[in-house]
C-alpha cells in the first residue's frame, strides 16, 4: 500500500501516523522480503533523534497482544461471520419455504383462524290455504350483533344506535362494553331498519340474516299447521311433517371475523353461496270455512260445557279436508257438572257470536291434531260397519224387519237399549234411524264375526289413513284371536274398537262417494320459490261398498236426519244424511267406563242425493250428552255454510223447515251406547 494515502489517526498499535496497522505476522505467510531486508510497511524507527527536532512525546500504547491471541481472535471473528452467514442462510431458506413452497398451507391456516363461514338461513316456505291465502309465512329479518372489543365509544354509539333498535341508550351502552366479543343486541329487525343501521357503519356492529315466521291468522288451524322451534325447524304438525321441503337449502358466506364471530369491519366476503328458499305448501283447507268450523265448534263447546271437540269437513270426491278444527276448553278440560244447557236448535243461539279462541278466550286450540292423533270409542256412528256389511251381503235390506226387545242376554252379560221400550218390530232402516243397540246386535249376529271384522278393516279402520300426519294413530281394533261373544253387541255399537275421528269421517265419506273409499288429503299442491304450483298426486281410491248397497245406505242414513236421532242436523233447502253417536268414555286404568263422561258425535253428508261434502263433529264431555243434541247442530251450521260458500245448488223438494221438536227428543236417548 502506498504510504501517500490519506492520513488516519495514529494507529494505536503501531504509533504510525495514519495508514493501516501493520499486518500481524501471518502464521501462514511469511513476510515479503524487500531490498533492505525489511518490510516496507514497517519502516524502522530512527533510534536517535534528529537534530533540530524534538523527540515526539512518548505515548502510552496498549501492550501488544501476542500473536497467538491474535490468531484466536481472528479465528473467532471468522467463525462468527460464518455463523452469521449460516444463520441468515437458514432464515432465507425458511423464508423461501414459508413464502414459496408452503405459502398456501400457511395462508390456509391463517385464514382458518380469521375467516368464519356464516350460514345464511333459507327463507322457509309459506303455507297457504286452497285459495292462496296465507296461513303461515316467513319474512326475512336481521339480527344485530355487537363485537364490543371493536367498540371504543360505547356511550356515543349506544346513543346513535338505540333509536334504530328501539332501546334505551342507558340499557344499550352496557351491552356495548361487556367485553365478550359477541353480544346479540336485537333479533328480527326488519330489513328497512337494518339497512339504515348498515348505512351508518357503526363500528363493531354486524347484521346477520335471519327470518321470522308469521301466522297472520293467529291461532287458526294451529294444531294442523304446527309450529317451528327457535331454530326455525318444524316441531309439530305440517311444519314438522314437511319440514325438509319447507326449510329450503341454507346458503353460506365466508368473511373475516373476530374470534367471537362478529365480522371485522371493512372485510369483504370471500365466498358466498346463496340460500335456496323452501317449497311452500298449498293446503286443502279453506280459510273462511276453517274459521266458521272453529267458531261453530267453539260456541258449542262453551254452550254445552264440553271439554273440547273436533270438527272436519271433507270434499267427497277428492278426500280433501276443507276444514279441520281441534279445540279445547280453556277451563281445564273436565266435564262440567253445572246445569245442562238448553237443547240447541238447528239454528244455534250462538250463531253470530264470535268466540275468542286462544289463551285469553274460553276455548283454545288443542295441543295436537286430535282428529288424527287421538282415538276414541265412536259409539253408534260405528253401526255403519254392521249395516254396510249386512246390506252388501244381502243379510238385510232396508225393509227387513226385526223383533227388537229392550234387552238381550249374551254370554252371561245383559245388554239393553238406552231407553226402555217394549219389544217392538223395527225395520233395518228404523233400527238405524233410532240407533237401536239391540237391533244392531241382532243384525251383527246374523252377519257373523269374520264378516264384521273384515268390514271394519274394509272401511279403513285399524290402519293409517294415508295422511301421514305426525303422531297419527292407526287405531286399535279387535282381532279374531281376541274375539269375545259379547263383541256381537259391543263392537257394532262402537264400544270395542278405538278409532280416530278422521277414520270415522273417511268411512262415511266412502258411503257419500258411491261406495268408493278416498284417502284423505291435506296438501293439495307445492309452491316453488318462483311461485310455480305443482299439484300433488290425487288420493288413492278403492271400492268398499257396491253402488246399489251404497244407495240403500245413504237413504237409510237420510232417515236418521229426517225422523231419527239426527234431526238437528237439518239444513234448510238441502237433504242431509248422517248418523249420531253418544259413546261412553272408557275409564283410565281400569275396566268399565267413566260415569257421566260421554263423547257426542255426528257425522254426515250433504246434499244426500248427490253428496258434495261430508263432515264430522265430536264433542268431549258435553252436557247434554247426546250427539244429536250437541254435535248435530254444529254439523248443520258448518255444512250449511260450506254448501252456501261453494254455491252448491239446493235440493229440489228439500224441506226448508226443521222437523218438529218432538221427533227429535223422543229418539235421542236411544243413541247412547
Amino acid at each position, binding site marked *: 500500500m502506498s504510504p501517500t494515502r490519506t492520513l488516519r489517526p495514529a494507529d494505536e498499535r503501531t504509533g504510525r501516523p495514519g495508514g493501516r496497522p501493520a499486518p500481524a505476522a501471518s502464521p501462514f505467510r511469511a513476510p515479503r522480503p524487500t531490498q533492505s531486508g525489511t518490510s516496507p510497511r514497517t519502516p524502522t524507527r530512527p533510534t536517535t533523534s534528529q537534530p533540530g527536532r524534538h523527540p515526539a512525546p512518548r505515548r502510552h500504547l496498549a501492550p501488544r497482544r501476542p500473536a497467538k491471541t491474535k490468531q484466536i481472535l481472528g479465528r473467532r471473528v471468522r467463525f462468527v461471520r460464518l455463523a452469521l452467514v449460516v444463520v441468515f442462510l437458514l432464515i432465507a431458506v425458511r423464508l423461501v419455504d414459508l413464502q414459496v413452497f408452503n405459502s398456501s398451507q400457511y395462508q390456509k391456516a391463517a385464514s382458518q383462524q380469521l375467516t368464519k363461514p356464516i350460514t345464511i338461513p333459507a327463507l322457509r316456505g309459506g303455507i297457504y290455504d286452497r285459495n292462496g*291465502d296465507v296461513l303461515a309465512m316467513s319474512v326475512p329479518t336481521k339480527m344485530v350483533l355487537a363485537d364490543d372489543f371493536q367498540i371504543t365509544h360505547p356511550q356515543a354509539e349506544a346513543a346513535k344506535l338505540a333509536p334504530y333498535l328501539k332501546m334505551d341508550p342507558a340499557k344499550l351502552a352496557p351491552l356495548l362494553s361487556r367485553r365478550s366479543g359477541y353480544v346479540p343486541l336485537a333479533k328480527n329487525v326488519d330489513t328497512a331498519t337494518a339497512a339504515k343501521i348498515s348505512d351508518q357503519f357503526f363500528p363493531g356492529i354486524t347484521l346477520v340474516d335471519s327470518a321470522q315466521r*308469521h301466522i297472520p291468522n293467529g291461532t287458526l288451524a294451529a294444531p294442523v299447521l304446527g309450529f317451528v322451534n327457535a331454530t326455525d325447524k318444524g316441531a309439530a304438525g305440517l311444519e314438522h311433517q314437511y319440514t325438509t321441503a319447507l326449510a329450503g337449502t341454507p346458503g353460506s358466506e365466508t368473511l373475516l371475523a373476530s374470534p367471537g364471530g362478529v365480522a371485522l369491519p371493512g372485510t369483504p366476503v370471500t365466498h358466498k353461496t346463496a340460500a335456496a328458499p323452501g317449497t311452500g305448501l298449498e293446503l286443502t283447507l279453506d280459510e273462511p270455512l276453517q274459521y266458521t268450523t272453529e267458531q261453530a265448534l267453539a260456541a258449542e263447546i262453551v254452550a254445552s260445557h264440553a271439554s273440547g271437540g273436533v270438527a272436519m269437513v271433507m270434499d267427497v270426491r277428492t278426500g280433501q279436508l276443507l276444514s279441520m278444527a281441534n279445540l279445547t276448553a280453556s277451563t281445564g278440560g273436565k266435564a262440567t257438572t253445572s246445569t245442562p244447557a238448553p237443547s240447541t236448535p238447528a239454528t244455534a243461539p250462538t250463531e253470530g257470536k264470535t268466540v275468542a279462541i286462544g289463551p285469553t278466550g274460553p276455548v283454545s286450540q288443542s295441543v295436537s291434531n286430535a282428529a288424527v292423533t287421538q282415538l276414541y270409542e265412536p259409539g253408534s256412528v260405528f253401526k255403519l260397519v254392521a249395516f254396510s256389511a249386512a246390506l252388501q251381503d244381502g243379510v238385510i235390506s232396508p225393509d227387513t224387519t226385526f223383533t227388537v226387545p229392550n234387552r238381550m242376554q249374551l254370554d252371561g252379560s245383559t245388554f239393553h237399549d238406552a231407553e226402555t221400550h217394549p219389544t217392538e218390530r223395527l225395520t233395518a232402516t228404523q233400527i238405524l234411524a233410532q240407533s237401536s243397540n239391540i237391533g244392531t246386535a241382532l243384525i251383527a249376529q246374523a252377519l257373523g264375526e269374520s264378516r264384521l271384522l273384515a268390514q271394519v278393516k274394509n272401511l279403513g279402520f285399524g290402519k293409517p289413513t294415508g295422511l301421514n300426519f305426525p303422531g297419527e294413530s292407526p287405531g286399535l281394533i279387535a282381532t279374531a284371536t281376541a274375539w269375545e261373544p259379547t263383541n256381537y253387541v259391543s263392537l257394532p255399537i262402537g264400544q270395542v274398537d278405538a278409532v280416530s275421528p278422521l277414520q270415522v269421517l273417511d268411512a262415511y265419506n266412502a258411503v257419500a262417494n258411491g261406495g268408493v273409499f278416498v284417502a284423505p288429503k291435506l296438501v293439495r299442491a307445492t309452491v316453488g320459490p318462483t311461485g310455480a304450483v305443482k299439484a300433488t298426486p290425487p288420493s288413492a281410491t278403492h271400492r268398499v261398498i257396491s253402488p246399489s248397497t251404497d244407495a240403500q245406505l245413504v237413504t237409510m242414513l237420510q232417515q236418521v236426519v229426517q225422523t231419527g236421532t239426527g234431526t238437528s242436523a237439518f239444513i234448510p233447502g238441502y237433504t242431509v244424511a248422517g248418523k249420531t253417536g253418544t259413546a261412553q268414555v272408557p275409564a283410565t286404568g281400569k275396566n268399565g267406563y267413566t260415569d257421566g263422561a260421554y263423547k257426542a258425535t255426528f257425522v254426515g253428508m250433504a246434499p244426500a242425493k248427490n253428496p258434495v261434502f261430508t263432515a264430522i263433529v265430536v264433542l268431549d264431555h258435553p252436557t247434554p250428552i247426546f250427539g244429536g243434541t250437541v254435535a248435530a247442530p254444529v254439523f248443520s251450521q258448518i255444512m250449511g255454510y260450506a254448501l252456501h260458500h261453494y254455491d252448491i245448488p239446493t235440493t229440489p223438494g228439500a224441506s226448508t223447515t226443521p222437523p218438529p221438536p218432538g221427533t227429535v227428543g223422543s229418539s235421542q236417548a236411544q243413541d247412547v251406547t
Partner: protein
Amino acid sequence: MLVSLAMVGGSLLSVVIGHAVLAQGQVRLSGVQAALAAEQAVHRQEVLGAAKLETPSRIVAQARQQGMAPPTNTHQLPRVPLDQPLGAPHVAPSTTTTAPSSTSGR
C-alpha cells in the same frame, strides 16, 4: 419495435379498462342484488300485511263494527236460466219466509 411496444401498451391499457369496467359492473350488480333483496323483503312484508288484513276474524270484527250482523235466516233463490225470458212474477201471500225451491240452485 415501436409498433410492438404500442401494441403491448395498448393491450395492457385495454385490459386495465376492461377490468375497471368489469369491476364497475360487479359493484353495480351487487347494488342491484341488494336492492332486489330489499324489495323482496318489502314485498313479503306487504303480503304479510295483506294477509293480516284479510283474515276472517278481522273481517268479521270490522263488519260488526260497521253494524252488520249474520242473517238469522237464509233465503234460497231458485236458479233462473238467463237465456229464457222471465215469467210473470207469482204473487203469493206473504206468510212464508223462504222462496220456493222447486228448482235447484239459488
